[in-house]
């Protein structure tokens, strides 16, 4: 299957900020934090369309997200995921003795994925509690 | 719980206000006050024989709380590692040497026999922060001096010659942000610095405002006097930390001489940490002490008081609202530097410093402070401070007291300082040694009087029962010849009593009390108050980034809020 090597950044988006205030269990929040914004040419290179699912895999973990064509013109090979539980499936625990994990700048491979592989937030964690 | 009655028996009492100079007598305490007598059978009896009984220390100028102190704390974790204080059954934990944490500050002062400490430089916009830190500074009565020297409203009222409104604005401000006294720091110079400019001499107009520092000093001095505030205008003069700046200091003092008017004897200006402001010379290579010029002026005039800002050879942190001074200092030393400018009001700078005996400039500074202390005749005009932490930490006060009382102690250190500095000083020719009473005047009786605290600084009936007992027997310890023993005795109180409760015993805090926060509530005419409020409402939104209602501090945020009401003449 086609795959690319990319650098993953996570960060604040207005949608994530609004979704967060609307409640972490809201669909709005889940939708806001489970996207992977990519350069349009990177999406094309994966032979998929914006909105199709992609799997990202790093040395620390893997996660399936909905792809989106970034309107923010990142350089090719840079992908952006809003802060939250999805992005954090991909990052390592090291802080370089600073307290701060590397939330921006982890290397990942990205490849097409099927919608059935997408997990809801509660499925990322095996909790007994209901939301 | 009502504090219990206490009787302190057979102590050697020193109380300069009431002209008691080492008399063996009993002091009775009831309901937080000093009283004539109490029923001995139901009172706690403290045997103070062979010990001195004093009013608790009153510090007129010590940077213990607020945004700049906290920035100092965050800047310098290494400062904290020198002093780590674990939690005890009574005390919260804490750290810090030159910028101690708040609980530690309260405990350390209290264990040294101090009961009142005033924080001398606060940006009004950040006063809620200052108050909140003071709430967390136990053991002490406290108050704040908001900064006015570079305030836009002040400069505009002055430019428009609206002196009544200026006075009413000052009253509004103190009441709104819960300040006690008026502080000026480098008037005009900090506003200039906000464009990268410099501190200015007194007659250079402030950029964009068309008023001079002299006008600000005179206008504010006048306003404070007309408001009948408990403490006179407290000023950190222009050109601080500059060779030859003694002339600016004298000009500053002289600029308000007329304002004292018939009130001769009641000072209208307090020039703070003079040590930093009375240098001779024209550059750092030929820097000299200008203490004799200042002393001559102070000895001949009664409208001014000072505190010293003595330096102590140590690694400490300088911090001041005088942003441009700290910028120059970091340029010279290359040390870490914090700057913090505050909209429409003031600035702030912080630079760590290590005062070294071998350093010519530092030695001159040390000499200058001591010369000023010794050359001014009347101790009621001189407050002993280190401008904590600028000259040294407050915990070094006993060392400074020893220098004042012992020529031997001074000489021992003079022998070790930079030789070129030593060759230029008159210090070695000064034979004066403070008496113990004179030390007490400059550390409590005089400071309390200058602050308008009638119930503090003495042990007369009706005074607050803020009392320090030190293990100092003058039959055994002569401060002049055994200064180290004297110092040790003053470092830790055997007892500290705060508002009639024993809070320190054998140099250790045994009970934590919150202390109170004083602020000035000056009543001006209703018309004037309304005019000023209307002016402020018009401009507030333009000048500030907060709403006026959120700028005003509600009393509920203050632990033991204690307004001091005065009637203004406007």
């Amino acid at each position, binding site marked *: 299957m086609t795959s690319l090597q990319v*650098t993953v950044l*996570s*960060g*604040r988006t*207005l949608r994530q*900020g*609004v979704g967060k*205030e*609307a409640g972490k*269990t*809201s669909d709005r929040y889940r939708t806001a934090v489970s996207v992977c914004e990519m350069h349009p040419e990177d999406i094309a290179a994966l032979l998929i369309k914006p909105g199709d699912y992609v799997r990202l895999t790093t040395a620390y973990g893997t996660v399936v997200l909905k792809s989106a064509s970034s309107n*923010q*013109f990142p350089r090719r090979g*840079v992908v952006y995921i809003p802060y*939250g*539980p999805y992005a*954090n*499936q*991909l990052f390592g*625990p090291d*802080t370089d003795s*600073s*307290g701060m*994990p590397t*939330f*921006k*700048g982890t290397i990942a491979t990205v490849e097409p994925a099927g919608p059935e592989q997408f997990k809801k*937030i509660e499925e990322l964690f095996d*909790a007994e*509690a209901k*939301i | 719980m009502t504090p219990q009655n206490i009787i302190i028996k057979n102590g050697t009492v020193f109380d300069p206000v009431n002209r008691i100079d080492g008399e063996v007598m009993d002091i009775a305490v009831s309901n937080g006050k000093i009283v004539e007598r109490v029923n001995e059978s139901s009172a706690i009896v403290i045997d103070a024989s062979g010990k001195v009984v004093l009013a608790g220390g009153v510090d007129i100028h010590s940077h213990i*709380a607020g945004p700049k102190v*906290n920035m100092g*704390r*965050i800047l*310098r974790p290494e400062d904290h590692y020198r002093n*780590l204080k*674990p*939690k005890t059954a009574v005390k*919260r934990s*804490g*750290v810090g040497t030159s910028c*101690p*944490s708040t609980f530690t500050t309260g405990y350390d002062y209290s264990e040294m026999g101090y009961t009142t400490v005033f924080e001398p430089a606060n940006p009004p916009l*950040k006063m809620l922060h200052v108050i909140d830190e003071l709430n967390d500074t136990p053991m002490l009565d406290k108050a704040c001096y908001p900064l006015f020297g570079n305030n836009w409203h002040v400069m505009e009222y002055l430019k428009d010659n609206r002196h009544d409104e200026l006075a009413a604005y000052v009253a509004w401000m103190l009441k709104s942000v819960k300040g006690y006294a008026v502080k000026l720091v480098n008037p005009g110079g900090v506003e200039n610095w*906000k464009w*990268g400019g410099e501190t200015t001499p007194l007659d250079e107009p402030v950029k964009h405002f068309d008023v001079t520092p002299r006008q600000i000093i005179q206008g504010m001095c006048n306003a404070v006097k007309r408001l009948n505030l408990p403490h006179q205008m407290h000023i950190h003069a222009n050109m601080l930390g500059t060779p030859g700046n003694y002339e600016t200091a004298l000009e500053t003092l002289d600029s308000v001489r007329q304002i004292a008017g018939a009130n001769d004897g009641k000072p209208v200006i307090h020039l703070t940490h003079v040590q930093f402001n009375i240098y001779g010379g024209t550059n750092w290579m030929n820097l000299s002490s200008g203490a004799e010029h200042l002393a001559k002026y102070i000895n001949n005039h009664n409208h001014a008081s000072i505190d010293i800002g003595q330096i102590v050879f140590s690694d400490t942190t300088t911090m001041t609202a005088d942003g441009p001074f700290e*910028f120059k200092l970091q340029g010279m030393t290359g040390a*870490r*530097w*914090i*700057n*913090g*400018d*505050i909209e429409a009001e003031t600035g702030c700078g912080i630079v760590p410093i290590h005062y070294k005996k071998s350093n010519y400039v530092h030695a001159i500074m040390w000499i200058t402070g001591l010369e000023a202390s010794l050359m001014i005749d009347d101790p009621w005009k001189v407050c002993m401070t280190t401008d904590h932490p600028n000259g040294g930490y407050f915990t070094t006060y006993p060392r400074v007291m020893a220098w004042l009382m012992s020529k031997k102690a001074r000489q021992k250190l003079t022998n070790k300082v930079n030789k070129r500095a030593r060759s230029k000083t008159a210090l070695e020719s000064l034979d004066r040694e403070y008496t113990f009473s004179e030390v007490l005047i400059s550390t409590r009786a005089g400071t309390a009087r200058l602050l308008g605290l009638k119930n503090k600084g003495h042990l007369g009936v009706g005074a607050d029962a803020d009392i320090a007992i030190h293990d100092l027997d003058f039959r055994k310890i002569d401060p002049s010849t055994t200064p180290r023993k004297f110092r040790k005795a003053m470092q830790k109180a055997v007892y500290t009593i705060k508002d009639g409760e024993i809070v320190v015993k054998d140099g250790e805090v045994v009970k934590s009390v919150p202390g109170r926060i004083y602020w000035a509530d000056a009543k001006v005419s209703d018309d004037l108050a309304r005019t000023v409020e209307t002016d402020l409402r018009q401009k507030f939104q*333009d000048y500030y*980034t*907060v*709403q006026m209602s959120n700028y005003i501090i*509600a009393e509920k945020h203050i632990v033991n809020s204690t307004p001091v009401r005065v009637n203004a003449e406007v």
Partner: protein
Amino acid sequence: MQTYQDVVCTVCGCLCDDIEVDVDGNKVMKARNACAMGTSKFLSYTHDRIETPMVRKNGSTQPANLDEAVTKVAEMLVNAKYPAIYGLALSSCEAVKVAIELTEEVGGVMDNQSVVCHGPGVLGLHEIGVSTCSLGEIKHRADLIICWGCNPDEAHPRHFERYSYTAKGRWRNGKADRKLVVVDVRQTSTARKADKFVQIDQGKDYELVNALRTALRNEQIQQEKVAGVPVEDIEELAELLRNAEFGVILFGLGVTQTVGKGRNIDGLFSLTRDLNKYTKFQIMPARGHFNVNGVNEVSAWQTGFPYGIDFSHGYPWYNPGETTVTDIVRRGENDAMLVIASDPIAHFPKDLANRIRKSPLAAIDPVHSVTTLVADVVIPSAFAGIECEGIAYRMDGVALPLKKVVEPSQGVLSDEDILKKILGKVRELKGRSG
């Protein structure tokens, strides 16, 4: 209907204090002047609330009463050798004070969200210091605003209008009198508003900062590009900085969370210091959570240290990278965690989230979060600034009073009061065992 004036918004570090809140029958109807995030918070604060305390029994969490939950948390803390107490950036300073006392009492470690946001800025500050100011200084004087790795348009939506680019100040009439430069990896919506956008290679901030410092000293840069930016552009930017009358750098997580971390900020602080030789220049972190600055301030004055405070020796101790909660969790050292008004399970890297879950976990929060979803004890709390009062610190250190505009649900307490109950219980338990 009642209208509350001058309400402080409790979303981001801007702490906009001009919100007008209409309340009808204990329900917020409208929040005027607020941005999209602020409006969402004021209008949606009732959504997704935790209804009752929950305690894990036989594997699953069940409703419990408050005393039972408080006792559980107290027992968890007393039985732990090295508990971590974490969060509070979305709470009041009053709660922070109790949390510090509680951590001191149990000899644990207390940390807050700055460890994963602007903590590296503190590391830079230890090295260099910082030249900064209150927001009004920017509003009145700044003719050059640099957004470096921050995106106020999305993260601090009213920053420009109230404090900076488009604000009307004494000497600057909005954006006509100012230039905006954005340095970022992406062309964010903030970048699209900029007069100059410098697109930088990811992870190369430190290189670009130092190239700028080099150019400022008029020294030759021996390369064609640094951090993906042509040297001519760097030299032009250096000129722009030098020629500003009053410049300010606003920086965000784009520089704190990427490679270099504290070193990037150390570089930016040094650049600002260098610039003050030529002109007036300031720098300020664009703080995210509304009171993350307040946690730093209160922690600093009570303990000497702004975050990552270890009380296991009895006194406060601090060394980021060692005493920070992320590192303690990574090494598996803590044996319990109490989270207040934070969601580390969602916002920490997966490995850390999993490690947190290996030991007892309690959460105090008004709303469900990923952390409350997996916690062993959950206690619902009131929203600071909506349902209870308190003090919070704006990103520039201005303290503001939070208002209570509605009553919390019956039995729901503030973080402060819940923590006081826990502290009381801890002391009771320790008294019993000791």
